[in-house]
């Protein structure tokens, strides 16, 4: 069992959990993820690692309630435990000094962007960060991102905070104004990562994305998370989750992420009935 040491709600339906798992904490690197199960009947789901404290043996995750498992997870409190917590999984990001890096985060994807941004910042890169959300209340990690960015831009779809519009609007502007950008890192909804890649492609700027397909074991065994990258089938769990965004078939990923939509609805209904 993996106890929850602390819990914070960052925004409506978005929560931060500190979980005690010394083995994961001692090996985690930026870009990696965990597979969790909430209880004995639970489904295995992947969640990105937001932060880790090697001394205390704590791994922090930030997640959004999007389905039955994450809804169940949101019901847990400090002192409760997760049944299973496996990691760190996936290939760690290879951060290096490149010059100027633009970090683009959408929604809860910013949680996954944070450790990557910090790693690039620590190597002396100039960091321009753009984070966005649907509306002000759903924006997370503003202060944390500000602390590790040389410049921070905020967008909301409805204009309730920061600039009205999409993260890609700001990105387009920065690039069009002739800013010399050596690398773009984007994490967020698939549609956002796709849009970021469309913006950076004409500028020929290398763009890394972190993918979030449906997984089962997370160790390479099942192929549920397969994606087409440069025309080749890759397993996100062992070859990724970070890929060259200009090579990713985002349409296929979006389609494959809808594979269990029908069942997910049924599960949420069933879960609602059990909750009463």
């Amino acid at each position: 069992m993996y106890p929850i040491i602390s819990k914070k709600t960052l925004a409506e339906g978005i929560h931060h959990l500190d979980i005690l798992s010394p083995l994961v904490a001692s090996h985690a690197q930026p870009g990696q993820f965990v597979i969790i199960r909430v209880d004995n009947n639970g489904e295995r789901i992947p969640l990105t690692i937001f932060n880790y404290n090697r001394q205390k043996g704590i791994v922090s995750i930030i997640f959004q309630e999007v389905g039955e498992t994450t809804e169940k997870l949101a019901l847990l409190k400090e002192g409760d435990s997760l049944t299973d917590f496996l990691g760190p999984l996936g290939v760690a990001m290879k951060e290096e000094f490149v010059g100027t890096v633009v970090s683009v985060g959408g929604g809860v994807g910013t949680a996954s962007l944070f450790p990557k941004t910090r790693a690039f910042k620590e190597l002396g890169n100039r960091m321009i960060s753009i984070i966005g959300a649907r509306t002000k209340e759903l924006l997370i990690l503003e202060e944390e991102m500000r602390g590790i960015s040389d410049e921070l831009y905020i967008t909301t779809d409805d204009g309730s905070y920061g600039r009205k519009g999409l993260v890609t609007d700001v990105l387009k502007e920065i690039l069009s104004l002739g800013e010399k950008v050596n690398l773009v890192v984007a994490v967020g909804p698939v549609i956002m990562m796709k849009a970021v890649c469309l913006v950076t492609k004409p500028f020929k700027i290398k763009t890394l994305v972190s993918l979030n397909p449906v997984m089962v074991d997370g160790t390479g065994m099942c192929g549920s998370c397969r994606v087409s990258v440069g025309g080749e089938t890759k397993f996100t769990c062992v070859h990724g989750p970070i890929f060259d965004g200009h090579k990713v078939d985002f349409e296929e990923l979006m389609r494959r992420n809808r594979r269990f939509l029908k069942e997910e609805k049924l599960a949420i209904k069933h879960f609602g009935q059990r909750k009463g």
Partner: protein
Amino acid sequence: MKTQKKRQPMGKQSPEERVKNFNEVALGYSHLQAVAEAQRCLGCKKKPCVEGCPVEIDIPSFIHFIADGDFNSAIKKMKEKNNLPAICGRVCPQETQCEILCVLGKKGEPEAIGRLERFVADWETENFNPSPSKIKIDQKNKGRVAVVGSGPAGLTCAADLARMGYAVKVFESLHETGGVLRYGIPEFRLPKGVVNREVEYVESLGVEIVTNVLVGRSITIEELFKEGFQAIFIGTGAGLPMFLRVPGENLNGIYSANEFLTRINLGKAYLFPKYDTPISIGERVAVIGAGNVSMDSARSSLRLGAKEVSIVYRRSEVEMPARKEEIENAREEGVVFHLLTNPLEFMGDENGWVKKMKCIRNRLGEPDESGRRRPVPIPHSEFIMDVDTVVIAIGQSPNPLIPQTLPGLKLGRRGNIQVDEETGKTDIEGVFAGGDIASGAATVIAAMGAGKHAARAIDEYISKKTKV
């Protein structure tokens, strides 16, 4: 007394009944049947059957005890060599190992060794708790060994080492133990209660098993040595599922057999939504490949409610790698076989769900390196099959994780770990490997045999080292 030519038949759930449930198909022998079957054994002095057993069970001796009605001694004899008899009695291909060598087989049906193995293991479970075969083990002072993977190879290696007096810790990456016994083989062929009991037995020998640890990521082999383990056995199994590499293979509704079976067996998707792991299955299912995994996938599909389930295989009936028994079970249940047929392409609907499969017919040509006749496509024989769900069960390639994180480990052509076949020794001192990660996809019992050999070699290695 004249020896019966025919073996005792084993009861099975009727095909009409069993396709509606996930309960075990084969029902096992009664006491009377077991004794009668055991009495057929000639008790050959040379024991040819033992030669065929990868874990060296003294077959005539345990059968002799059954014939005498002394089931207690029979299970003790069995467990001298085999730690997992209830599993082996169900899933081993005895017909190509011990039973094929049985002298009775020359003039009639061979002794039903597998069924007797299952009988005596189940008898112990029903009648004893804790088991009478539980043995007292000496102080764990011979050394510490880490075992990676809790499948058949790892469990066997761990149990044998524990019995020799080693402190053994097993690292499992999934949330439950058993490896392929848990995620791969369905409940109707190997009930998970049986796996639980066999794993409990291994733990009762003093073996410690931890789940949710992926060696190579959560902890490395080097770190395990630093922690004081003197030897490490790698039994991580077959690894990454292979795909056909044809257009449309990533359409929705196309699973690898590993994903399909893991959802069903480990995730209990057949009990969804009581269990959270979903599976989505259409009316027409095509399973590509004809091994045991294919039969398991096809038969699971029927139980999940599919109307029409086909096995699509590029060679002919005689080349099918599955056990005869499983092919017969599948046929009885209504699985249709499209032999000498190979998929070329998958086509989907506007939402990206697979709907059609373009296939080509083959004929058999000259034998290939496997000794089986090579399938040769017949020109202009393409045709379209309607499908809603496809399961690709054409094998696996080794998981590269441990080799990637352990520089110097020598690999074979296909990426499997190269070992000395007798001992499981790898190129790195103190590191041994066995089962599918070393041999490529094979059987549960072959993996157990490899685990057994490695345990012996590890004992030798550590004993020699500590003497110096």
